[in-house]
């Protein structure tokens, strides 16, 4: 893929997954103009702080130690995605320094960021995503801080968000934290309540439990074009809209601005642009003969839909760049997987990113995910009242309903992308994985005879247990390949 900037051209090397050192060396070939050009918060003009196109080494030096062990896609677009994502902490501080408001969203509230973005100079972010930090930093400091505040190992890794909130060294004090109650998981709830005790400005948003209206199974094939649609009882929407109105009053108070429905309509258009691009990239990647982009980058990309890593315009630009890259690779018959790679759907996002590297190291590839953020993947509809669209989006969340409804998202992908195996990476101590995984397996097996591997992701630094996961993944991929051969 050639990326052009005025008259300057950068050509990606042959697609490959490369390590930190190789990216460091390759970075030398990227013209300075590109480094200078890609910026976040472009409306702030050119500042010495708002560039982000840097190789993994940069973030390694600043503490993300795991990067030296990971493998990365070698395209410029993927480097942009990594740099943009890794830079989010600094970006949030810069936002505050530049006078913007920052609003934390926690729990299954991936449908709220469009509303936040519709307020001028107001930035949403997702503290839950700091659950990756202990892994990326190979560090237990955030867990230790959470433990000090009463949330220990019996809570999922998301307790790192509590540590980060307490320290305020990973993001500045949010002007408001929007936290979910109601149909939200126990772990998240205990984390959010602990944050509340620290005296931050919080707003509780109640999410209703989504009951299946009873049409499960009937729409498996019909809904292929809407992979992310969930069914719910219509009156739930009225309830969520009411909650949205409460939230709007609070946002108006915090931002000193009036809610503008037209501004929200405009934001929804942009959000849909982002989600549409992500949908297309995933579809291209999952359908192509050779997978054009690694699983790890696909996960990073999927999570951009939550809060656009705090800069919606730049996120769209990066997703477009990635889509061009992926399309070009497919057009030229190039990819990072083998022809006969085992086609795997991954359920529940692995907090330990190296597990996604293992997938390809062992001869697998990703053809679907259910990373518990369905609410931010689906395109928002264009109802004249944008709050209706947002509420519908929220009611499509992965984890607010029955396990059957969540499994439906997986079944559609098995069907559409011809999956040959399923990996479920449980979150150690999570309140839902312990019972849900068995049910998901059962519901999948009602429909498909497909190998399923499940394991618990272990905490950072537990090398022996991690090697056991590698062994199990090795055997699993081998089984799929053996099955193919026979």
């Amino acid at each position: 893929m050639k990326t052009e900037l005025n008259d300057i051209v950068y050509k990606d090397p042959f697609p490959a997954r490369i390590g930190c050192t190789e990216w460091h060396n390759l970075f030398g070939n990227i013209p300075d103009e590109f480094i200078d050009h890609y910026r976040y918060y472009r409306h702030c003009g050119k500042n010495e702080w708002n560039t982000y196109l840097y190789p993994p080494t940069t973030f390694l030096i600043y503490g993300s130690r795991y990067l030296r062990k990971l493998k990365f896609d070698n395209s410029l677009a993927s480097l942009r995605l990594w740099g943009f994502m890794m830079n989010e902490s600094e970006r949030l501080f810069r936002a505050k320094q530049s006078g913007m408001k920052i609003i934390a969203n926690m729990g299954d509230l991936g449908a709220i960021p469009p509303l936040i973005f519709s307020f001028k100079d107001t930035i949403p972010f997702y503290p839950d995503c700091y659950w990756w930090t202990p892994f990326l930093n190979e560090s237990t400091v955030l867990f230790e801080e959470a433990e000090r505040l009463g949330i220990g190992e019996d809570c999922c890794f998301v307790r790192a968000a509590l540590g980060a909130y307490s320290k305020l060294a990973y993001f500045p004090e949010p002007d408001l934290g929007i936290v979910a109650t109601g149909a939200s998981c126990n772990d998240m709830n205990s984390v959010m309540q602990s944050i509340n005790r620290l005296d931050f400005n919080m707003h509780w948003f109640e999410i209703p439990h989504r009951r299946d209206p009873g049409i499960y199974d009937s729409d498996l094939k019909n809904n292929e074009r809407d992979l992310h649609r969930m069914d719910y009882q219509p009156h739930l929407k009225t309830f969520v809209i009411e909650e949205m109105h409460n939230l709007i009053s609070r946002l108006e108070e915090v931002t000193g601005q009036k809610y503008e429905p037209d501004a929200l309509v405009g934001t929804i258009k942009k959000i849909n642009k982002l989600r549409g691009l992500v949908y297309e990239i995933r579809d291209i990647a999952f359908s192509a003969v050779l997978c054009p982009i690694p699983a790890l980058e696909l996960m990073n990309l999927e999570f951009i839909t939550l809060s656009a890593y705090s800069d919606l315009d730049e996120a769209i630009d990066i997703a477009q760049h990635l889509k061009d890259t992926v399309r070009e690779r497919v057009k030229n018959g190039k990819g990072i997987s083998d022809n006969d790679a085992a086609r795997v759907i991954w359920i529940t996002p692995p907090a330990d990113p190296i597990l996604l590297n293992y997938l390809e190291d062992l001869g697998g590839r990703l053809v679907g995910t259910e990373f518990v953020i369905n609410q931010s993947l689906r395109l928002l509809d264009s109802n004249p009242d944008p709050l209706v669209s947002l509420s519908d989006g929220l009611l499509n969340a992965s984890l607010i309903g029955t396990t059957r409804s969540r499994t439906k998202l997986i079944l559609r992908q098995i069907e559409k992308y011809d999956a040959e195996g399923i990996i479920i990476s449980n979150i150690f101590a999570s309140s839902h994985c312990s019972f849900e995984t068995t049910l998901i397996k059962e519901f999948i097996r009602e429909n498909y005879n497909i190998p399923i591997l499940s394991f618990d992701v272990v905490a950072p630094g537990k090398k022996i247990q991690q090697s056991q996961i590698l062994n199990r993944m090795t055997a699993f991929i081998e089984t799929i390949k053996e099955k193919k051969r026979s």
Partner: protein
Amino acid sequence: MNGRLTPRERFGLLLIDEEPDRVVTYPLITSHAAKVLGCTVRDYCTSGNKMAKAQIAAWKKYGHDALSIFTGVGLIAEAFGSELHFADYDIPILLNPCIRNIEEIGDLKKPDPYNDCRLPVYLESIDICFETLGDILPVIVFIPSPFTTAGHLRGISEFLMDSIRHPEEAHMILKICTEACIDLIDACMKLGAHPMLVDPLASSSVISPMTFNKFAKPYLRQLTDYMHRFDLDTMLHICGETEEIIDDIPCTGTELFSFDKNDPGQTKSELGNNTRLIGNISPEEILMSDPATISNKVRSLVTQMKDTPKGFIISTGCVVPINTPEENISAFIDASHMHGKYRY
């Protein structure tokens, strides 16, 4: 902010213009770490494993905010072929420079950081420190700068004479030294270390401002430009006097300047709006005086400097002398923790 910060978190906040919980406390503990571990300085300087163990032992003892990988300013010159003298209880010093006469410049071969002389010792030490404590501590590696390295290739007075008699050749030497520095910086960065340029021979105690501007500054700038390409905040340490070149410091491109003999208040008013300052308890003082005196000095320095607009790191003006009494260093650390608080 409710939780306690790790040194890495504290340092990270400083670099993005945020006020941390307290002033970063960073005495330049290098070969003194050998004393803490109980090994010879010779062993410390020639074994990456020993150097790392000593750094870790020193941190466990004192709890300062960053590790310092450094043995002496002749490191790169030695890898070019200069000979250093190693003693059991002193830092290595230049014995025989490798370019005896100016015609030999053409023979200079840029060293390979992974294979030549003691450069791999540095790398091994970084690797162990980063693996062991990099989650909570920045690992700072001192890179002898081109001017200082050139002085160790030719002999210090020789090179100063070259700068007058053979300026073209002097620049040729500096050019290859710069390339060697970049290679070492690169190798250290790949292991997670944050480079700090050290240029003692560029001090106004040694050279004139004119020589600094012609022969030191442009090459320092090349190094900072190189690191800026990776978005690194660069650090520069020049010991001795730097008051005469203070206006030139920003032109080196450095974001953090570690100063020695200058008046701190004046340095703050001259540089503090745009440059983060690191300094400057006198090494002689920390070696010779007593804990109470050190405490007072640290209190008054930190009180004077903690409001430096771009940020301040309390440090020593140069490396902590090997035989510094441990209680003096502890007094330094305790006083800076007590008086350097921004919150709580």
